[in-house]
Every structure is written in structure tokens, then in C-alpha cells.
């Protein structure tokens, strides 16, 4: 049996790496990828807790399933916006889209 701490530490590291990506990257698509990494950490957490602690072992699994679904939907939605912005401005970098102050 692998200790649950292993999974939790892994998910924490994934979350931190994803957060680094969000802050350091400029391309909207790469930021989106970093958000996906953060959400992967979240899903690991939910499943680890579901497998190890929840006697029902169930709500966490469903939660993880829906997290994956929502993450995929979010990518679709955000990429639509990215494409539109690229058409209008010829850039997909968030800091070149600067007609609004950050």
C-alpha cells in the first residue's frame, strides 16, 4: 500500500508547478495548459481521498470525473476566445493584448 501522503505531496507539487506556469508564461494557450496541470493535481487529490478515506469511496470519484469534464469544457471555451483574439490582434500573448490595463 502506498502511503496517501505520496499522492498528496505529488498533487501539491503539480499545483505549484501549474501556478508557476500561469505566472511565468505569456502565451494564453500555455497559461491554459498550466491551469490543466493545476486541475490534474486537484483530481489526484480527490481520488486519493476517495480511495483512502471516504468509506463510501464515491463522491470524490464523481467529483474528479466532473473536474475532468469541466476542465475539458473550459479548454474548448477558452481556445475559442483565444482564436478570436488572434484574429483581431494577431497575437495570443496576454500582455500584448493591452488596450485594457491589467
Amino acid at each position, binding site marked *: 500500500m502506498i502511503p496517501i501522503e505520496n499522492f498528496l505531496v505529488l498533487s501539491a507539487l503539480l*499545483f505549484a508547478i*501549474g*501556478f508557476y506556469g*500561469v505566472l511565468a508564461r505569456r502565451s*494564453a494557450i500555455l*497559461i*491554459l495548459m498550466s*491551469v490543466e496541470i*493545476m*486541475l490534474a*493535481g*486537484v483530481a489526484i*487529490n*480527490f481520488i*486519493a*481521498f476517495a480511495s483512502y*478515506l*471516504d*468509506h*463510501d469511496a464515491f*463522491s*470524490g470519484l*464523481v*467529483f474528479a470525473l*466532473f*473536474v475532468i469534464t*469541466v476542465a475539458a*469544457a*473550459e479548454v474548448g*471555451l*477558452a481556445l475559442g*476566445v*483565444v482564436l*478570436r*483574439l488572434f484574429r*483581431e*490582434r494577431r497575437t495570443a500573448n*496576454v500582455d500584448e*493584448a493591452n*488596450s*485594457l*490595463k*491589467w
Partner: protein
Amino acid sequence: MTDVLGNALNFRYALLLPEIVIALTAVAILFLDAFKAEFKVGYRALPLLAVAGLLGAGALSLVWVNETDEFSRLITVDNFTTFFRMLFIGTTVIVIVGSHEYIEKHVNHHGEFYALLLLSTVGAIYMAAARDLLTAYLSVEVLSFSLYVAVSLAKNDLRSGEAALKYVLLGGVASAMLLYGLSLIYGVTGSTQYTEMAAALSASDGSTDMALMLGLVLVIGGLGFKASAVPFHMWTPDAYEGAPIPVTAYLSATSKAATFALILRWFAGPLYPVAEDWRWMMSTLAVATMVVGNLVALQQTNLKRFLAYSSIAQVGYMLMAVAGMGPETASALLVHLGGYLVTNLAVFTGVIHFYNRTGKEGIADLKGLAETNPYLALVLTAGLFSLAGMPLLAGFFTKFILFQAVVEADYLWLVVVGVVASTISLYYYLMVIKQMYLYEPVGDTTRWRISPTGYLTTGALLAAVVVLGIWGTPLYRVSHEAALALFAAG
């Protein structure tokens, strides 16, 4: 709950009827819009249908006044839910009626726009009605997704796509934060059902305190983003400025109220047993939000950005009530939310009609409005004074109730900060009002009138702002009932 198919759950789908009606109306609108050439529908048909569906759903939800029922441990329908059903449905109706001319001129994809407004209303209602973290989280995403799209729908405005991109990216990060926090809280409590979570937290032996604390911080951060509390507010001014004005109005009304409905459900229910762990976080957030929101609002020149910071400041007052959470403060927060919604919508409807006529959105462009359209100037003045908390208007009554409840919850120092912040806010609201009354109109000086539906909505809102200020008892009583239901559900 251990066996697979043997447990008795309550599946009365009738409880979900109002939202089903709203969602079906949304689908009907999408359908009508797609086939509008074949059906020869006029351009007013879509908003009419949307309003009809919403009013039907609103009438339906009155069936559950003073009733309490639960759907399959996922959704509860009680006075709290009914309160927010009426609030959200009312807001969407007002936004649609007050802005359909604007939408025709300045918004792409009308069918999708109305459908999104309706679907986001469903999400907002379920944020208030959820009894399970999963339902609540998905409702949050329904509301956020619709708003991401709605922000991007402004026609011929380069700012719109950019605002949507920033909103969607930051929103994704905030969702990830919220989710990580929820996963930790799930790990600590072993359940996602509110009642079971509360029981687990009451019986907690303290062995997972650090994880719980981290979970609370992350959840509050994620929710703070959705409610645009400082320091999670960076998206707010951009999204407000880039969005079509009706969406800005909707963002400042439904999106905020729904987040506070969720905060009330969570922090008065499952997380109430660990109140001492989060009260200080909420009060810190409240102070930061009030101070920064009010100080930055002083420097704005664009009306939408100005209203964005003013609404951030208002969130600070509401967070005070969350910090001092209890039956009385919850009730006061509901009163204040009601008053804030009415007031804010009055201001925004005024701004929408101003933009319809002039196409401008700078504060300086309001110069001389009292001469060219005294009625609209009156509406805006009443709304802004009410936001500042002047006596005899809704804002004074609700803010008074709020501050009083927070003082009684032993947070006198928070109220002192709040009163100082309110005083600062009076200054910048007065600056805007000064533009309308003390300056001569620039350029076009002819008198103009707003549309009949404009008179209808602004008139109703103006009346509500004044009446609530003088006679707020009904709102107070309704909010009290809702807060009682909230704490009874636990």
C-alpha cells in the same frame, strides 16, 4: 448510503421545475434564433420569450414559500432558496427589459446572449440551493462559463475579446484554487454533503487542522475571486469595461449575489463549526476590499471602471457581515444584498440608456445631463446617493441594518473602517453627480427622452430605491425568514 440501489432518496423533480422552465426557455430561444428566417420572428420576440419564461418560473417558485424540501440530498428548496430564486429571476428580467435596445445595437448573437443569461440564472439559483459541494461547484461553473461568453459578445469592440480572455484565464486559476481547497475539505470531512460535513467538522479531533486551514484559505481565495474581493479583484475592472453594459450590470448584480448566497450556504452551514478558523480571514479580506475599492474608485474616469471599483467597495461591506456570521448578520446581509441589487441596477439601467443615446461611457461625458435629460439624471443621482448610503434611500436603510448587525456581532472595529470607507465613497459619488448638475452640456444640447421600456424599468427601480429607504419592513421580514431557513438547514 452504503448500498447501491436500496437507499431511499427523494426524487421529486417538481422541486426543480422553475429552473427546468428557465432552461427550456433558453433552448427555445436558441432554436427560434437559429430558424428566425423560417419563422419570421420579429426582433422583439426573443426578449419577450425570455421575460415570459422567467416570469413563469418566478410565479412557480412562489409555490414553495414557507416550505422545506430536499431533492436527493443535492438540492434544497426552502425560504432561502426561494428568496434567491426571486432575486435572480427579478434581476435577469430587469436586465433584459432595461437593455433590449442596447442589445440589438451593440451585442453579437442575440439568441445566444439571451439564452446565456437564462442559463446563468439557473446556475446562480443552484448556487443558493445546493446541499452538496459537487452541485455547488458545477453551478459556480455554469454561472462563470456563461459570463465568460457573455463578456465576449460586445459588437465592434476590441476590448471585449481581451476582457473575456483575461476573465476566462484568471477564472480558471480561481476555480483550480477553489477546487483544491474543496478537495482538502473533502479529505478532512470525508463527505461532500453539507450535513455530513458539518457533523464531521463538529466531531473533528484536530489531527487535520493544518490541511483544513489551507483548504479554507484556498476556498476563500476562490470565492473572493468570484465576488471580486481584494486582492483577487484584478479581473473586475477589465471584465466590466470590456463587456457590453448589460453584462456589466449582470456581473455586478447576479454574479455577486450568487457568490454571497454560496458563501452564506457554506459558511453558515458545513463550515460554521470551524467559524473561529475563518472569521479572521474574512475580516482581513473585508478591510482590504473596502480600503482598496474605495481609494481606487476615486481615480477612475471611465463610468464602467468606476462602477467596477464602487461594486468592489460594496463587496467589502458585505464581507464584514460574513466575518461576523450569525443568524442576525446573515439576515442583515440578505437585506443589504436586496437593497444593493435594486440600487445597482437602477444606476446601470441609467447608464445603459445614457449610452444608447450618446455612445459614450466616460464620467466627464455626463456633463450637463440634468439639462438634456433631467429624469435620467434624477435616476442616476438617486442610485449613486443610495450606493453612498444617503438617508431616505434604500442604501441607507440596508447599510444601517448591516452595520448594526456587525456591531452586535462584536466587530465594532470593522464597522469603524466601513463607516470611514463610506464617507470616502460619498466624495466620489458626489463627483459624478456634480458632472451632471453643475456643468453645461457639451456638444448636443437638445433635450432627449428614453424609450418606454426604459421609463418602465428605471421608474420601477427608482420607486424601489425610494420605497425601500422609507419602508423597508417587508424586505427585512422576508430576509429574516430566509436567514432562519438557512440556519435551520445547517
